């Protein structure tokens, strides 16, 4: 770990980070890496956040898991002892915030829940950097790198519900009850790669933000 920190510290620049939020989160980093124009609009220009009925539904499921009411619709879902764990820490000088859906302190394992119509695959889980992001923040917060995590895909389906006459109907999103769980292990090298990505993204965001402010 000491060698890794030394290597990372070489990358930490002397210029102070100025960030629009007080931290870097997965959503910010992912938005920055995939769509800089949307990032600018949402985080620099106080624009509206992306909001779809699918995102809202996912949020509702997460809330149900947090407060325990999920059992009525998802009795087969496995959750750990701590839900919606908030992690605030510094990753090599970069303030980071993450929310882990479900966490077990004894094993240092965690679970992430995804809802959607299209099933996840082992390959997709392996490539999904959000899990690596969470593992990295856990490592810096607890001092222990998590060995593994689980991704629970909860299938959803839109169904038409009629409220009387045939024209008085609405499409509603709901869970089908089908859950597929994927296990993912972590490697030191990929955690280091994520740490470097976090630092690089934070620096880029800070630089872009300074330039944006200079346009005033």
């Amino acid at each position: 770990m000491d060698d890794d920190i030394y290597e990372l510290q070489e990358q930490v620049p002397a210029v102070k980070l100025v960030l629009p939020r007080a931290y870097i989160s997965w959503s910010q980093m992912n938005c920055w890496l995939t769509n800089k124009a949307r990032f600018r609009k949402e985080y620099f220009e106080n624009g509206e956040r992306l909001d779809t009925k699918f995102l809202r539904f996912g949020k509702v499921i997460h809330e149900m898991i947090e407060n325990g009411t999920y059992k009525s619709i998802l009795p087969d879902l496995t959750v750990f002892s701590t839900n919606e764990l908030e992690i605030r820490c510094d990753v090599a000088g970069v303030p980071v915030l993450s929310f882990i859906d479900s966490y077990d302190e004894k094993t240092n394992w965690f679970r992430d829940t995804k809802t959607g119509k299209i099933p996840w695959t082992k390959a997709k889980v392996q490539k999904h950097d959000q899990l690596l992001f969470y593992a990295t923040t856990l490592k810096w917060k607890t001092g222990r790198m998590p060995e593994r995590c689980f991704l629970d895909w909860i299938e959803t389906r839109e169904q038409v519900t009629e409220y009387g006459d045939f024209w008085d109907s609405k499409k509603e999103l709901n869970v089908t009850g089908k859950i597929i769980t994927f296990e993912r292990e972590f490697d030191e090298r990929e955690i280091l790669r994520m740490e470097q990505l976090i630092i690089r993204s934070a620096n880029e965001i800070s630089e872009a933000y300074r330039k944006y402010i200079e346009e005033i």
Partner: protein
Amino acid sequence: MSTKEKKPSVTLTSYSIKAIIPTGPYANIQSEIIVSAKTLDEARDYVLPHIDQLFETYLNRSERRVPVVSQTKGTEVKPIAITEVKSANVVDVTVKPVEPTVAVADKAPENKPNAVDKATNAINSCLTVDALELIAKQIEKSVKLNAMEKLDLGMLVVNKQKALSAKK
């Protein structure tokens, strides 16, 4: 039955407004306008337009872009004429705008509304004191914002500062 008129117990003897106008990095002018008037409203109504004029003329003057004028043979650009009209206590500075005889290559910035919107959005969206400080400094030195806009944005910055401090 006649009612006695109450004489005012306070007489306005003088009214002054002091303005410190930044003209550039580590530079400013400090002007004070002192008048005597019968009422506060009269005095204020007289003094404030002069203060506004001073801001318009001198604010960040050293950092303002100078229009690039391309000269053709036989033409010359007339200099700006400045006249000062002095009375006992009032300084009045009048600036005659230049009428260029050749094309001006650099037009005045047309994006003033954008600068205000940008600044407002930046203030509203930032959640760190460091970012707010940077925004405040930029507002102060911006050539795209006039004095009144900077004052208004300054108030937004102060309110945001309070909100961020309250969160801590």
